[in-house]
């Protein structure tokens, strides 16, 4: 069993008791809710005549169903309007703070929490969304939960949970040009498998991780769940503290910053912490990674050949065959040159400001390919606003991208942004499951945001390293 890791320390600080099931009852420091997975939980509370126990530690936003084009109310789609109204009523009744679209703070739940300083090191953070692992970038213990568990957290401020093992993933060295955090995590999932992390929490460490800004760390922690790990984290450091200091919460409560810093320092993994497993990855070796299949673990370097199903472990062969059929790719070929119909720059993995800035540098002065429908969906209203002030919107629009309002959008196709028929999409999101982007014949190729920009321009999967960056006028 691990000892002295951030995970152990945060767990111990939040443990209320051990339940008769052998699970621990954990206190939840921040409960984030959104419109898709919470209404049923509020319904369960009403059925049992229970109230929200810790409304001040709960925060709501709307992201999954919100239209990203026309957001005037009532929404065009009745079901979306109903879910939004339900959320509005629930938060009003319970006195829960809501980053609604009129606040200028709305956005994808995993973008909003960190922006406002709600996400902090050493907190336990849960949300009815599997990408809650994102918040681990700050040294929080953050994981996704189901709706019955949302009910538990609403009703009690706690959760029944089993302690897991800790795997340290050390990424040492330096990332090459054109290689990003997204490539690191796609590579990790490819090596360890989509199930490799089941039963584990991932601690990301090593010089390549320390060199990343908070956004890159978030991209990595975000996709922990794609590797089977329910949570992933990075130990807090000066990069973390610099981000926190700028957020609303610490701008409004500067004294809190000094007050909490010793706590943040105290929960860092000890130098001699014990792990259940350690994996090392050489950052210098990596190249941009793209997926060729229908699970995030089916990735390859952009210059590498798509594997023969027979060369894979026995239990992966069948899935690989079906995936190659669905994607219409041939083993032995590379993904370079794969035709793209749609380019989606968005999602809680890669729709933060630096993501859009980097992609804009590829797009600037170029034009979206005639056969490509390209859209940028900023992760939050704040990202959107700053990007517009910096002139990024103009760059994207001049190139032929649509510039949208904040939301999950085509990451999961719950609003009007969906793939049609068998369209192929270069996507900066995190899941390439069949049907994920709204069409069951749709084909998703996951990649980093600069690679998405490159694909939008050329109309095919392209090694972004071969596309020189435009002179940077935007900043």
């Amino acid at each position: 069993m691990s000892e002295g890791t951030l995970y152990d320390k945060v767990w111990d600080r939040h443990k209320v008791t051990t339940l008769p099931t052998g699970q621990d009852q954990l206190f939840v420091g921040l409960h984030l809710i959104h419109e898709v997975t919470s209404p049923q939980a509020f319904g369960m509370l009403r059925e049992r005549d229970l109230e929200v126990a810790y409304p001040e530690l709960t925060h709501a936003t709307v992201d999954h169903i919100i239209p990203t084009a026309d957001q005037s109310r009532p929404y065009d789609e009745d079901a979306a309007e109903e879910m939004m109204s339900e959320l509005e009523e629930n938060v009003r009744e319970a006195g829960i703070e809501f980053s609604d679209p009129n606040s200028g703070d709305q956005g994808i739940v995993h973008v909003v929490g960190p922006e406002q300083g709600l996400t902090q090191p050493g907190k336990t953070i849960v949300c009815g969304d599997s990408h809650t692992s994102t918040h681990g970038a700050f040294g929080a213990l953050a994981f996704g939960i189901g709706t019955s568990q949302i009910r538990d957290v609403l009703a009690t401020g706690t959760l029944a949970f089993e302690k897991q093992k800790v795997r340290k993933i050390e990424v040492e060295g330096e990332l090459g040009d054109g290689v990003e955090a997204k490539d690191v995590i796609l590579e990790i999932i490819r090596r360890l498998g989509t199930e490799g992390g089941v039963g584990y929490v991932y601690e990301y460490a090593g010089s390549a991780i320390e060199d990343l800004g908070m956004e890159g760390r978030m991209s990595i922690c975000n996709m922990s769940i794609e590797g089977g790990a329910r949570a992933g984290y990075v130990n807090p450091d000066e990069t973390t503290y610099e981000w926190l200091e700028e957020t609303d919460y610490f701008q409004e409560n500067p004294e809190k910053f000094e007050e909490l810093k010793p706590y943040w320092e105290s929960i860092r993994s000890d130098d001699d912490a014990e792990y259940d497993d350690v994996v090392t990855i050489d950052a210098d070796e990596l190249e941009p990674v793209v997926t060729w299949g229908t699970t995030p673990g089916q990735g390859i370097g952009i210059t590498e050949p798509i594997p023969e199903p027979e060369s894979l472990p026995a239990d992966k062969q069948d899935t690989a065959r079906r995936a190659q059929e669905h994607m219409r790719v041939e083993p032995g070929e590379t993904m370079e040159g794969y035709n793209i119909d749609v380019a989606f720059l968005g999602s809680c993995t890669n729709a933060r400001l630096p993501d859009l800035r980097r992609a804009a540098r590829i797009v600037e002065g170029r034009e979206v390919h005639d056969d490509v429908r390209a859209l940028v969906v900023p992760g939050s209203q704040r990202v959107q606003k700053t990007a517009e002030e910096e002139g990024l919107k103009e760059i994207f629009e001049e190139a032929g991208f649509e510039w949208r309002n904040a939301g999950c959008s085509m990451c999961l196709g719950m609003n009007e942004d969906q793939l049609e028929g068998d369209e192929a999409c270069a996507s900066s999101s995190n899941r390439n499951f069949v049907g994920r982007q709204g069409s069951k014949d749709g084909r998703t190729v996951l990649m980093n945001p600069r690679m998405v920009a490159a694909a939008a321009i050329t109309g095919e999967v392209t090694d972004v390293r071969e596309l020189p960056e435009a002179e940077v006028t935007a900043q």
Partner: protein
Amino acid sequence: MSGTDDVEIPEVDYVSGSGVPIRGNDIDTDQIIPARFMKVVTFDGLGEFAFFDLRFDEDDDQKDHPFNEERFQDSSVMVVNSNFGCGSSREHAPQALMRWGIDAIIGESFAEIFAGNCLALGIPTVTADNETIQALQDWVDENPDGELEIDVETETVSYGSETIDVTVDDAQRKALVDGVWDTTALMKSNAGAVRDTARELPYVESEAIPEAE
């Protein structure tokens, strides 16, 4: 009203019924319930949308899928392969299966959040190795009316003349067998200790901690 005390939580130490084989690894939650069916504020009507895109084509005509087959319509035990339920945390997935009629799932392995969500509904997710599962799937295929008996407590599954050992996660087994899988009431009874834990955490402001009831 006395709140959660009214909720009766049954013990799930034994589940029986006929089986339905769902073959394939890495069947994700988007396949179990496509996102477009999640635009609902209750789970009530989800059963008919289970595996929807695997069951119907564009014109809503039926495709080959066990959930469409007449002989499996009364089945309540699903037999699946590895990493079943990977992907999102949507409880809509087990809710849809439960409302279709599934009471228990036997498989090679399950995604963690999915298994947790099943537990919250009192649905056991028990595991066995690849060979055992394949044999079981074949048997179910040949015996669609055959009875499967899952003994959660002793970790066995009986079918035909066979009894096989399966694995049930310790916490899951205890929760099901003792009838404490619905944790709300249990955890609510510790409200005092919860407040104490909160008070010890430097980031929790005292105003955020509710007064004792």
